[in-house]
């Protein structure tokens, strides 16, 4: 393992090389663009020996991945925002075809108006597709989670595609140290992909995706649901092995910091979750019993972990950098739904903030947490949701 100063996007390109990805298909979109740019360079200079398809749209990018994955190749793509939205049909196709494609989504606001900075609306709007979804908080975590994602996706108990999300610009274009692995090192963790059930092969012809009547359609959908569900358990094994081999561990589906004795826990996705650690430290110094729960995985939703955490705390301050328009913060809503079926009912406050790349600083996060602390003290949930720093 070697250490370098790198942007998240360039680190993702390195992950493609480290994981011995065989086919990449990608289309440029800010801020994901530098991922395919760097892959192109690695490809043209012979450092990465795979096949690179410079497609004419994101829709084609994901369908080229589907074609390649169906023919047994390990495949990858990267995109952002409108690009992810254009892929929508293909995202659903990939899950139903049970193809272990890995997608790096560099979170960016959805248009209009044009805004290339981070909002999680792009990926959150895909939460019902079956794609496993990670959110990362550092360049290092992005790189290693992409490698782990292949192992997770290709596991026969899962066989579902994985989306690894990183905040646009905050991570994609900001240099930070990361530790990377040579392909020979990754080989120990990630063997070559072998499609376990079907593959496009003239020697053993199968027809994939033909008509399925109502008698069987539901069973296929149930199997998909199971596959995504299984990712929680399988990811535990994946992380354990990764830690053993490379000494890297990012905290499971929810990375908790000072949560053990916390009365109020702050939840968030992406880069804010890293910033939140500082907010927690400062609040702890000020005498508040608070903790940080960094939501790394939102699909499958880590129900058991939330319930376990929820059984110990008095309140959640749940920040979404996204909105389910007409029904508030998507992850806050999931936490509320998760806690409903338990005896313990902490106050769960939903905050919307940081949209369009607006800064969520340590003091912003502290303000949000203290608002929940106050609600807990008063025993009143207050408004359904709070838009932080709304002018």
């Amino acid at each position: 393992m070697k250490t370098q100063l790198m942007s998240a996007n360039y680190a993702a390109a390195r992950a493609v090389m480290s994981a011995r990805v065989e086919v990449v298909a990608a289309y440029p979109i800010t801020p994901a663009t530098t991922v395919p740019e760097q892959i192109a360079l690695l490809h043209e200079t012979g450092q990465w020996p795979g096949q690179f398809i410079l497609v004419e749209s994101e829709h084609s990018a994901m369908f080229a991945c589907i074609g390649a994955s169906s023919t047994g190749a390990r495949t990858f793509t990267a995109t952002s925002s409108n690009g992810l939205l254009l892929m929508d049909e293909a995202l659903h196709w990939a899950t139903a075809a049970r193809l272990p494609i890995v997608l790096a989504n560099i979170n960016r606001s959805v248009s209009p108006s044009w805004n290339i900075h981070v909002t999680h609306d792009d990926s959150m709007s895909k939460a019902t597709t079956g794609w496993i979804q990670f959110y990362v908080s550092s360049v290092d975590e992005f790189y290693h989670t992409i490698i782990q994602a292949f192992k997770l996706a290709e596991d026969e108990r899962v066989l579902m595609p994985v989306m690894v999300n990183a905040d646009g610009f905050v991570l994609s274009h900001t240099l930070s140290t990361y530790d990377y692995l040579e392909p020979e090192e990754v080989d120990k963790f990630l063997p070559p992909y072998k499609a376990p059930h079907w593959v496009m092969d003239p020697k053993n012809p199968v027809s994939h995706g033909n008509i399925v009547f109502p008698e069987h359609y539901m069973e296929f959908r149930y199997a998909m649901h199971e596959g995504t569900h299984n990712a929680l358990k399988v990811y535990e094994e994946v992380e354990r092995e990764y830690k053993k081999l490379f000494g890297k561990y990012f905290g499971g589906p929810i990375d908790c910091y000072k949560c053990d004795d916390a009365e109020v826990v702050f939840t968030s996705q992406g880069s804010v979750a890293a910033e939140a650690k500082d907010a927690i430290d400062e609040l702890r110094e000020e005498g508040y019993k608070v903790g940080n729960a960094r939501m790394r995985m939102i699909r499958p939703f880590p129900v058991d972990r939330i319930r376990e955490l929820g059984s110990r705390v008095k309140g959640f301050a749940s920040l979404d950098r996204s909105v389910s328009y007409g029904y508030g913060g998507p992850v806050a809503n999931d936490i509320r739904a998760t806690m409903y079926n338990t005896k313990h009912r902490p106050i769960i406050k939903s905050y919307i903030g940081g949209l369009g790349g607006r800064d969520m600083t340590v003091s912003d996060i502290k303000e949000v947490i203290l608002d929940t602390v106050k609600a807990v003290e008063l025993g009143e949930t207050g408004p359904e949701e709070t838009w932080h720093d709304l002018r």
Partner: protein
Amino acid sequence: MVATKDMPLKEYVLKGNAACAGCQDMVALRHAHKALEGNVIQVVPACCTSVVQGLWPKSGLAIPVLNTAFPAAAATASGVRAALAAKGKDDTIVMVWAGDGGTFDIGIQALSGAFERRTDFLYVCYNNQVYSNTGTQRSGGTPLHAKTTTTWLGKKEPEKLLDFIVAMHEPVYQATANTAYPRDLYDKFLKAKEIRGPKFIHIFLPCPQAWNYPVEKGVELGKLAVETGYWIQWERIGTEFTLGRQSKRFQDPEKRKPIEEFLKMQGRFSHLFRPERQDAKIQELQDYIQYRWDLLMKTLA
């Protein structure tokens, strides 16, 4: 031209598939696969061929078939080709089998992209001039005055000149074919099989459901399309153009049958003859034939 007795006996289009009676797509598929002889991966976007394969868990085609989304055939094929290349299986043919809707309309962007990338694959558009799988809606391939369920009184625009669009992408091999001439079709697939790079075969095939003619008349109609000069059989290897031998004599307008003979067999043009004869509209279609011949011979020949 191949003699029928010399075609491989092996069938890749099996009995018991779900095609309609008189389906010309089956004629095209059958002869194409006899020429390709099995070492092929076929990509199928939404179209009649998605249905005629039959229901899961069975398949009426003895070749690997990857069904894909309507706009995505050429992109999916690009991925299949890349995976084969990554695995060193370069001898396998990648073929798209798409209808006119999936080619002229929703699939044209992916088609254009794959050709520009010089993808080594064969794109086949089997053209029955209508969205027949969804129930006869007009497509960019539907001819002028044809009735469909979205042009009840007849289409107001002629079909898109797809062959020219494709030709401007400079495929290594391009041909038109017609299910009324299966041996010629077979030969064209045999040729395409040997050439590396982006290839395109455009197959004209009548559809009894959508065109509204007796199911046994498919071959007759296909021949009439050529004999009236409406459909031109040709082939282009690189820039080397050959007018097909079925079409050669119909280059001379004097030798062509009147378009009326082709039109009056089809219910979709019945309004041109009943209750009153629409001479101007029939003439419009007649004139369009020479226009297309001129365009073809001036630009691609």
